């Protein structure tokens, strides 16, 4: 079934939200680099390949507080890579306007915790632009990048995971990479996607995660989850930095003979329901894990959708291992976080239900 009448043949079917249908597996060769370098490479390529791409935000000119934008201003000039004053609402609104004129606006919000003044612009202006103008206008060239998530000592305002707020907004895409190679490909795909995208980067991994990343231009598909590990007893779903916690849990629980299937959701909306459903049909059990507080977190959406689709197949209730329902604490961070041990306990409880 296609809806060609509404411009460009949007087909409703499997995996219809990806920006392209060819899935190229990037070659394994590449230099080992960390997350901020991978993002830096992606931004260099984005600005190189599109003369109407701009990168801006607070302090991006000298390279940014996490060095993701190093070298961009020197290479592409201050007219394309520039600092903004301290005003998130202004940055977002300005980016939407720039994108509405057909440019690729890559705005940075310095920490996801500061994104709330821009929330109105993103939700009310960016997400609904194409819809309310009957497709006359759109801000598809908009990409908002923001470091999110715990970093060990960030406290209330440098550790938040606000992805769930944005997942509630039709018209936006929310993408979260788990590693440098993923980040580069996903970020390039987001920048070139013709919908506004919010791209959250796990700040804990900026220096910690090192992976071999190909140097050329490549994209990874959006709205496609990736099965990182095959398993048969339980499906674990996560995104961002939480995946490494889940991976460690998988390894440990394998010693007890429990085989876990690990899925990286990658795009949170529109999310790849088919892959997760197929996996749960295989294993019969699901565990979702994220850093954001459990109540109303995106795990709730996954849980409800899978319960709808796989009710009779489920052997146990869907488990959610998430942050506690408190503001992100300062000294209590180790208690708050969905740690490996909490995940282990839940896996065992679910498997032995």
């Amino acid at each position, binding site marked *: 079934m296609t809806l060609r009448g509404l411009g460009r043949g949007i087909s409703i079917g499997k995996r219809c939200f990806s920006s392209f249908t060819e899935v190229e597996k990037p070659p394994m060769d590449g230099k080992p680099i960390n997350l901020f370098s991978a993002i830096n490479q992606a931004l260099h390529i984005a600005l190189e390949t599109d003369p109407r791409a701009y990168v801006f935000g*607070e*302090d991006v000119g*000298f390279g940014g507080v996490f060095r993701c934008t190093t070298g961009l201003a020197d290479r592409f000039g201050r007219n394309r890579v520039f*600092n903004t*004053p*301290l*005003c998130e*609402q*202004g940055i977002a609104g300005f980016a939407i306007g720039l994108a509405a004129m057909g440019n690729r606006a890559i705005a940075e919000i310095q920490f996801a*915790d*500061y994104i*709330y*003044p821009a929330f109105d612009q993103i939700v009310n202006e960016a997400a609904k632009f194409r819809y309310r103008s009957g497709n006359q206008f759109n801000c598809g060239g908009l990409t908002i990048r923001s470091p999110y998530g715990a970093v060990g*000592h*960030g*406290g*209330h*305002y*440098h550790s938040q995971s606000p992805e769930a707020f944005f997942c509630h907004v039709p018209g936006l895409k929310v993408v979260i990479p788990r590693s440098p190679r993923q980040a580069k490909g996903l970020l390039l795909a987001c920048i070139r996607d013709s919908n506004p995208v919010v791209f959250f980067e796990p700040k804990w991994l900026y220096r910690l995660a090192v992976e071999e990343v190909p140097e050329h231009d490549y994209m990874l598909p959006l709205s496609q989850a990736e099965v990182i590990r095959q398993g048969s007893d339980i499906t674990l779903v996560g995104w961002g930095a939480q995946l490494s916690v889940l991976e460690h849990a998988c390894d440990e629980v394998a010693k007890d003979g429990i085989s876990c299937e690990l899925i990286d959701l990658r795009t949170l909306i529109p999310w790849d329901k088919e892959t997760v459903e197929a996996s749960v049909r295989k294993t019969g059990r699901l565990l979702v894990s994220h850093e954001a507080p*459990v*109540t109303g977190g995106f795990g709730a959406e996954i849980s409800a959708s899978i319960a709808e689709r796989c009710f009779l197949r489920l052997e146990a209730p869907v*488990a*959610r*291992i*998430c942050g*506690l*329902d*408190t*503001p992100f*604490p*300062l*000294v*209590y961070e180790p*208690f*708050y976080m*969905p*740690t490996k041990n*909490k*995940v282990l*306990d*839940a896996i065992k*409880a679910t498997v032995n239900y």
Partner: protein
Amino acid sequence: MAVSRLASSTSTVSKLLLRPLSAPPFSRSFSEAAAGDDQTVLTIETSVPFTGHKIDPPSRSVEATPKELFSFFRDMAVMRRMEIAADSLYKAKLIRGFCHLYDGQEAVAVGMEAAITKRDCIITAYRDHCIFLGRGGKLVEAFSELMGRRTGCSKGKGGSMHFYKKEAGFYGGHGIVGAQVPLGCGLAFAQKYSKDETVTFALYGDGAANQGQLFEALNISALWDLPVILVCENNHYGMGTAEWRASKSPAYYKRGDYVPGLKVDGMDVLAVKQACKFAKEHALKNGPIILEMDTYRYHGHSMSDPGSTYRTRDEISGIRQERDPIERVRKLILTHEIASASELKDIEKEIRKKVDEAIAQAKESPMPDPSEIFSDVYVKGYGTEVFGADRKEVKAVLP
């Protein structure tokens, strides 16, 4: 460009700094033994005259007693010592998270306190350690909070950026830049209702001056004649961005447009006191006023910022030499013979000892109880259920 502008202002300032000290007719203290004499009132000129926007600035002759000058010296020395100690504690990893130090800006905190009462409210952003002390906070409470201990002013749950003191009208301690200004205007609104002749000082920085919410709050305050004083602590750098790169108009005292403003030398505690006194009187009669405190921070934005990549070491040491708030008061005290140099040195030693004691005491204090993670999310007795890692394992009822 900021460097040269600053250099020219410091050289003019340094010229003016010498003026009051070489003009004996202005002060009466030479004729009387000043130490311990509470009746003497000294008239001292501020380093630079005030500049007004849509308002007649107050006189630059400030009255102060020797006792007051002494207390200024002491209070600022305590603040300075506390911040330096916090620096070492942070490097020793006893303080974690973010730590934004105020050394260099002490005159603003101390001068403001001298002009107001504890029933007036102060609200500020995250560079709040010294304002907390100024409001009557104890060193032990400050260090405990920094180290995340139970005896901290926010029970160890806030950290460096979230100091509060309800009894003294200190509304904290806020992480999101600019968000405290509309809050401050709200406090002033409540004060206007209560008719108790109190005001609110809402502090923000030059970085926050470009936040939209500030102008929204300013408009509302002006419309409703709220007794709020917006104080821009202009230390010329928003994190690493110099003011001229972030603001079209770095004359923050003029940014209120229809709201009058005053530019004050924020390194001169007497100027700050005079300006705050003037502002309080104005706000109670006529509504909001903006004070721009021209000040400087010696440390970087936070402990993660060396503070030298966007400004020269010469600039920092220049300000330290020419405009340091504590040195200025020391010179005044020495010139007016209120105390001798060695007495002042003794005080500084005593302060150092006090600070060390407070740190030792704070270190002894225990971490908050793990159950406290759930307390104060909602009001006590709400009884709502929260789930932790796994519904079956961690289920708590919020106290």
